[in-house]
Each structure stands twice: as C-alpha cells, then as structure tokens.
C-alpha cells in the first residue's frame, strides 16, 4: 500500500493533475469571491451608481450587473466542469492504469 502511494506521488501525471486542478479551482474561487463581494460592496457603498438609468428608460445599470453575477456564477462553473471533463479525467485514467500495472 505504501509503495503504491509513493508510486502515485512520483507519477508525473499525478503531479500535473494536482498542480493544474488546484490552481484552477482556487483561481476560479477567488474570481467568484471578487465578483460577488465587489457586487456587495457596490450595493453597500454605491447604491446610487447601481441606480443609474440606462439611456432614457427606467431600467437601471444595477439590473444587468445583478443578472451578470448570476450568469457568471454559472459560466465559471461551466469552465471548471469543461476543463475537468476534458483534461483531468484523462490524467486520472492514466494514473489509475499506471497504478494497476
């Protein structure tokens, strides 16, 4: 068991998987935090900015900004899932095969 663990840890595929997945995961988390708390700070400190009207209508700039946060949350999740499906799963399969052999 111990041998198997060290073997996996030394596997370049494993090292690549860990490096790529954790950097993407934490980076996307950070982006989401910045977007959301940026929005909350706008709400708290610049409500009048969010109340700026777009053109001549009654729709304010806050509406597209709020909707954009919702859409971005979904898009970021999509980026992660796409990346994971296309490259991480391949790496994991290689590591598992390597481990069995």
């Amino acid at each position: 068991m111990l041998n198997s663990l060290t073997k996996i840890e030394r596997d370049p595929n494993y090292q690549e998987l860990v490096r790529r997945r954790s950097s993407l995961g934490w980076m996307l988390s950070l982006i989401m935090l910045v977007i959301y708390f940026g929005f909350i700070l706008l709400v708290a400190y610049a409500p009048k900015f969010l109340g700026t009207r777009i053109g001549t209508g009654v729709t304010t700039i806050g509406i597209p900004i709020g909707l954009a946060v919702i859409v971005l949350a979904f898009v970021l999740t999509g980026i992660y899932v796409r990346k994971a499906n296309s490259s991480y799963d391949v790496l994991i399969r290689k590591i598992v095969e390597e481990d069995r052999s």
Partner: protein
Amino acid sequence: MRKLFWPLAILLVGMPTLALAAGNIDGGSKQATNWSAIGMFIAFVALTLVITYWAAKRTASAADFYSAGGGITGFQNGLAIAGDYMSAASFLGISGLVYTSGYDGLIYSVGWLVGWPIVTFLIAEQLRNLGKFTFADVTSFRLGQTDIRILAACGSLVTVAFYLIAQMVGAGKLIQLLFGLDYWIAVVLVGGLMMIYVTFGGMKATTWVQIIKAALLLSGATFMAAAVLYKYGFSPEALFAKATEVHPKKAAIMEPGSLISNPLSAISLGLALMFGTAGLPHILMRFFTVKDAQAARKSVFYATGFIGYFYILTFIIGFGAITLVSTDPAFLDSSILEKTKSGIAAIKGGSNMAAIHLADAVGGNLFLGFISAVAFATILAVVSGLALAGASSISHDLYGMVIKGGNANEQDEIRVSKIATLVLGVLAIFLGIVFENQNVAFMVGLAFAIAASCNFPVLVMSIFWRGLTTRGALIGGFLGLISAVIGVILSPAVWEVTLGFAKGSAPVKLDNPALFSMALAFAGIWLFSILDRSERAEIDRDGFDAQYIRCQTGIGASAATAH
C-alpha cells in the same frame, strides 16, 4: 414494517379531506377551500407514494437507504440538488421581497446562488471521492473518529433543526392560506408524509420526490414569467416602466434600498449565504448518491444552472406581481387599501402570497391550484431531505461510528435511522406547533451561519490542509458553532424582534454573525492545530498524503452499488 405502508398513507391523505368537510361547516376567517389545489395536491401525493412504494422494495442495504445505492445520474442529481435548494421560502419569499422592495430581492437571489461555484471548485468531487454516506465520513477520514463524528453530528443536527422548524412553521402558515386547512393539521400532514417518504423509501424516494417537485416548480415558474413578459411584449423595459409607475416607492425599486444599510452586515450575510451553502448537510449528502466524482461535478453544474435560472424567474415574477396583483382589487384587502392607499401593502395574506396571486392573475383558478400544490410539494420535499440528513447523522455518525465503533450491523443501523426519522418527525411537528406564532425568519439565516461557521471550515480544512489535527478541528468547529448561535441571539433580529428588548439595544449589530463566527472558527482550527503536539496529531498529519491521493484520483473511493 412494509405492511403498514398503504394503511398509513391512506390515513394521512384522508385526514385533510375529513377536516375540510368539517371546516366547510364552521367557516371562519380562513381562506375558502381551494378544490382544484387540493385535487392537484392529492395527485402529487399519490404519485410520490407510488414512488415511495417502488423505492421501498428496492431499499435493502445501508447504501440504498443513505445514498440511493449511488445510482442517480449527474443530471437527475442536479435537479434534486436544485429541488433541495429551491424551498418554498426562496420561491415565495424572494418573489415577495421583489414585490415589496424590487431590486433588493435580486441582491438576495445573487447571494443564494454564489455558493454553488465554490461547491463545484472545492467540495463536490473531493466529497464524493472521500466519503460514503455523510460529510463526517470526509472530515473524520484521517482524524480521530469519535471526536470528529460528534462535532459533525452536532453541526448537522443543529443546522437541520433550525432549518426544519423554519420550514414547518412556513408550511403550516402557507397551507392554512392556500388550502383553508387548520395550522396544526397542515403541520401534522407535512410531518407525517415526510416520515413515510423517508422511513419507507430512504434516499431513493426522497430523491425522486425532489426531482419531480423541481421539474414542476421550474415549469410552473417558467410559465408564470413567460406570461408576465408576454403581457409586455417581451420587453423587460415595458414591465419595469409599468412597475415603477404603480409601486409607491416609484423608481426607487430599481436600485438597492433600505434592506442592506450597514456594509459590514451586508458582507457578513454574504459570507453566510456563500459558504453556508457549502456546509448544509442535506445538500452535501446528495453528492454520495451519484456514481463517481465526475457525476458529482456535473450535478453541481446542472444545479447551478437550474437555480440561477429559477432566481431570474422569481425576479420577473416579483415585478409581474407588482404590475398585475397590486393593481387588481380582487387580490387586495380593501380595509388596508383604504388606510395605506398602497396596493403593495394591502395584498391579501402578506407579501409571501405575491407569486400565488400572480398565478391566479395569469393562469386562472386551475393554474392557481397547480402553483399552490407545487408550493406544498416543495415544502414536503425539502423537509424530507432535511429529515433524512438528520437521521443519517444520528444513525451513521453517532450510532454506527461512535457508539458501535464502526462495527454496527447494517440492518441495525438502518433501523436506527428509521427510528431517528420518526423521532425527528414527531419533534418537528411538536416544534412547528410550539413556534406557530413566533417570528422564525431568523432561523434559516441561523442555519446558514452555523453551516458556514462549523461544518464548512472543518470540511475544507480537512480536505486541503495537511496541518489539521483532531484537536484543532474540534476546538475550532465548536468555537464556530457556539459563536454563531450566540451571535444570532444577540443580533437585532432575535434580541429586538423575537425577545422584545428595546430597539437599538442589540449587543451585536450584525444581522448575521458569519463574519466573526467564521473567522473565529478558522483561527481556532489553525491555532489549536499548530500548537497540537500530541501523538494523535502525528497520526492526523501523517494520514494526509494517502487522503490527498484518494481525494484527487478517486482510487479507493466507495463504488456505486446500484443494481
């Protein structure tokens, strides 16, 4: 046990019909009995009981009971997660908030959604690879089983209890309004059906009830939002223009209002919503119902899409209600209208009824019945998920791992969780009745604060931080739990509104304690871990490498058992 299924089911479904017959005679101040709503609700319950019967025949092992045998697909689980999250409180509450305050409702929706990407990036796959039935499987993976299971069970049960009370009270009030049933009958009905679903059908039945309800709720809300937009030629601008014209706050409903006044309070609430999502036991449990980490990841993607879409719909529904409900005397209480001259304040049944009245306005009586039945179904499904999470924590974590030291007989463990479900059900009914006239709005916020301050920090640190030790997790976790509870008691919402102390006298000015309780939890976990020089701490740290490999690759993860 299974022989009891149909007699119990028929008894429960029959109860409201009898009560209604009696209710028709004495009349009273309740809403008139809504027969189309009741018909559709009975159809829903009948369908879910058939599913429960089907699931009960296929639920034999502990894996079937806790995690539906791991046989749920990513898409199905995405719908089920969305179902767990789109409670009646978020459907009726957020559309009601948009109805009274406009833009403020959108701020809340955004907060409820943004936890999901974090769950995808940091929790979902890791949870599936490391755990089996409850999130405590993950936190206790390399730490001292007994201590950590007790901590996780406390965190889970307290979260579930507060969430459950809020749902039961909301259910009682809502059903009283929608169907004209007595409050206590509504509460008994919800509690009783919940016990049937969970004890007979386990996770399989609970998941399918959730999936059906999510599909119904999404299609109903889509129809309503489309009908509203259709009336305004699919121009949001025209809808907003009409809304600002008829709403007493005029153009102020298009910008942030008074709801969020104190910046620190706003950030604190934001933290609770964002990280609380990643610590709710009934949500975390859903990741064990899928085959592998890949399916877990896909399911959060679908769930995020459904939930985001749903919140956009509730925003349109809220504005639709401003233009179509607050201007129609049929939906307004004439005596309040006389006094306040505001259609918004005069809405019959309070602002939570905005979406229900809008259903009547755009779809007539039949659609009103449909939406009412969906709202009831929503509550049923959410309380079932909560009860299952609470029961699993008792049977798997406390009975199986702490009392029996991991050597519990599988059938005994299932029996314990069924008994735990019945106890939780009776307790929920009892507390639901006790809290009938209390303001319970703070309880959902409290549940999120505890999830964010106790469950989430321990979970994320155990997955990612080598230095975490049993002692650090235990002290930090309890610090978070206790400070969150104290912070809520001393907050304006409880101190002034519920306990009745003078306005402005609340010792803590934050509406939600997450800002300091989360910080305390993380600081406590860190400090007491690095100071920990015990033998146990050595074992904890040494176990990290093996855990990390399994977490990343899924090698050794518990497999699906579905047949």
